[in-house]
C-alpha cells in the first residue's frame, strides 16, 4: 500500500469518526429541542409547577436555577481566582504545591453525587442549614471550584513570561505585575472560562438533590426581603432547580402532562446552556478587543 492511499484511508476514517461524534451530539440536541420546543410558552416559563394537574410551568425552578448559579459563582469565583493566582504566579515547585494540585485534580474528578452527599451531611444535617439555597450554593461551589481554578490557572499561564519580565523591568512588584499586567491580559479568557463553568453549574442536578432539596414552595415575587422565607431571595428556603425538577418528575412525577413538562424543561435547560456556551467565546473576544484598544 502506498503512502498516498494510506493517507487517504486514514483521513476518511478520521472524518467518519468525527462525523459520528457530531451526529450523536446533534441528534440528541435535535431530539430534545423537537420534543420540547412546541411546549414552550410564556405561561410555561413563568407559572409555578403543578403536582397533580396538567398545565403547570417551571417558573420557580427557572428562577431557583439562576439564583443558585449566581450565589455559587459569587462564592467560588473569588476563591478560584485567588487559588489560581497563587498556583500560577507565586507557588514554587514543592511538595506542598504538588499536594494542592493533586487535591484539585481529585476534587475535579469527584462524582457530583458525592459532593451532594457531603453537602447533605455537613451543611444540611451538621450545620442545620436544612434543604436550602445556602446548602445548595455551597455544594455547587465545591463542585465548581476545582474546574474554575484550573480554567483560570490556564488563562494566567497563557500570558507569556515576557510580559511579567517587562512589568518587573518597569519597576513593578510581583503583585503589581499580576494586577496591572497579567490579570487585564487574561480577563477575556477568564471570562470565557467563568461563563462555560456557569453552563455546567446550571445543568447540575446530583449535587443539589440532597442539598437544595426537591421541593419548590410557592414564592411571593412581591417580597424581596431575603429574611422572609417566602421571598425569592431567602437563602434558607428549599429550592428545586430546573435540572433537579427534570430528574424528579421523571422518577416520581404524577401530573398527567408529565412528558410534556419534562420535554419542555429539558429544552429550556439545553437552550440556556447553549446560550452560555456560545456567548462565552463572543464575550471573551469582545472584552479582549475592548481592553486592548481602549
Amino acid at each position, binding site marked *: 500500500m502506498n503512502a498516498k492511499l494510506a493517507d487517504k484511508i486514514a483521513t476518511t476514517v478520521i472524518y467518519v469518526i468525527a462525523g459520528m461524534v457530531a451526529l450523536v451530539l446533534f441528534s440528541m440536541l435535535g431530539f430534545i429541542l423537537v420534543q420540547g420546543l412546541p411546549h414552550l410558552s410564556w405561561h410555561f416559563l413563568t407559572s409555578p409547577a403543578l403536582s397533580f394537574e396538567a398545565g403547570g410551568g417551571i417558573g420557580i425552578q427557572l428562577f431557583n436555577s439562576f439564583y443558585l448559579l449566581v450565589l455559587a459563582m459569587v462564592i467560588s469565583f473569588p476563591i478560584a481566582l485567588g487559588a489560581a493566582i497563587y498556583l500560577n504566579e507565586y507557588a514554587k515547585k514543592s511538595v506542598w504545591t504538588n499536594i494542592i494540585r493533586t487535591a484539585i485534580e481529585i476534587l475535579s474528578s469527584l462524582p457530583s453525587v458525592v459532593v451532594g452527599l457531603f453537602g447533605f451531611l455537613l451543611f444540611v444535617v451538621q450545620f442545620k442549614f436544612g434543604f436550602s439555597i445556602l446548602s445548595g450554593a455551597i455544594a455547587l461551589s465545591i463542585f465548581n471550584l476545582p474546574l474554575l481554578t484550573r480554567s483560570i490557572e490556564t488563562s494566567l499561564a497563557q500570558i507569556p513570561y515576557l510580559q511579567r*519580565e*517587562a512589568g518587573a*523591568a518597569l519597576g513593578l512588584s510581583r503583585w503589581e505585575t499580576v494586577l496591572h499586567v497579567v490579570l487585564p491580559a487574561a480577563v477575556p479568557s477568564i471570562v470565557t472560562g467563568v461563563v462555560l463553568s456557569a453552563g455546567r453549574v446550571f445543568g447540575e442536578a446530583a449535587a443539589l438533590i440532597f442539598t437544595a432539596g426537591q421541593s419548590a414552595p410557592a414564592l411571593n415575587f412581591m417580597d424581596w426581603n431575603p429574611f422572609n422565607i417566602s421571598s425569592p431571595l431567602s437563602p434558607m428556603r428549599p429550592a428545586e432547580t430546573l435540572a433537579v425538577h427534570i430528574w424528579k418528575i421523571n422518577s416520581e412525577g404524577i401530573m398527567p402532562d408529565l412528558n410534556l413538562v419534562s420535554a419542555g424543561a429539558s429544552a429550556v435547560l439545553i437552550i440556556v446552556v447553549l446560550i452560555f456556551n456560545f456567548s462565552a467565546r463572543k464575550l471573551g473576544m469582545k472584552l479582549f478587543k475592548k481592553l486592548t484598544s481602549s
Partner: protein
Amino acid sequence: MKNQDNILITRDVRLWYGQKEALHGIDLDFPQKGITALIGPSGSGKSTYLRALNRMHDLEDNVTVTGSFTFDGSDIYAPTTDTVELRKKIGMVFQQPNPFPFSIYDNVVFGLRLAGVRDRQTLDEAVEKSLKAASIWKEVKDSLNKSALGLSGGQQQRVSIARVLATSPELLLLDEPTSALDPVSSHNIEETLMNLRDQYAMIIVTHSMSQASRISDRTAFFLDGDLIEVDDTRKIFLDPSQKKTQDYISGRFG
C-alpha cells in the same frame, strides 16, 4: 565634573546558577553617556551580566550574585535599595518586543501612571516626547488608541523602547534588541539608539559584531563567563590586544 565620572562601576561580579558559577569576577565601568556593546558567543555570560545590573535575577530562584555594583554612587544590591526605584533609573529592553496588550498610549504611560501621574497633559506630553525619542511618533501618532499588538515587530520594539524612555531612566539596558527583527526594523532600532546616545548611557548585548561596530562607542568581549577585553570599539575591531578577541572577531570561533 560629574560627567567625567562613570555612571556604573562593577567590581568582581560573580554569579551562580545553583552551584555553577556563570560569571567569574567581572570588572567593568560605564560612562555617563554613549553606547557600550557586550559581545561574545552564546553562553559567554554577557546577557547574564546585563540582567544582574537591574536585578532581574531577583525574579528567579537559585541565582546568587556577589561583587560590587555602584550606580550613581549607591550600591545596587544594598538591602535598602528599592528595586522599583532602581528599575525606573535603569530601564531595560528585551530581545522579544513585549508591549502589553493595551493601546500604544497606555503602553507608553504605563510606568508614569503607576508612579501616580494622572494629569492628562503631562501624560500626553510624555507620550509624544518618548515616541519621538524612539523614532516612531510619525508612524503611530494617529493611532495612539489602537492596540500595540497590531504593530509590526520592529514598531512594537520601538514602542517598548518608548515605554522605557517615558520613565526617564539614566541607564538603558538592551538585551539583543534586534535579534528577533528583520533587517529593516533592525536598522530603524539602530538609528533610534544612535539618536539617543548623547542623552543616555546604554549597554547593549548583541550577537551581531557588525551591529556592535556600527553603533557602539565601547565594546566589551565576554568569553566563558570572563571579561576578556574592553576598549574603544574601533580599537577592539581593528587592533585588539588579546588573541582571543582577535580570534572571535575574525570569526575563528563562536
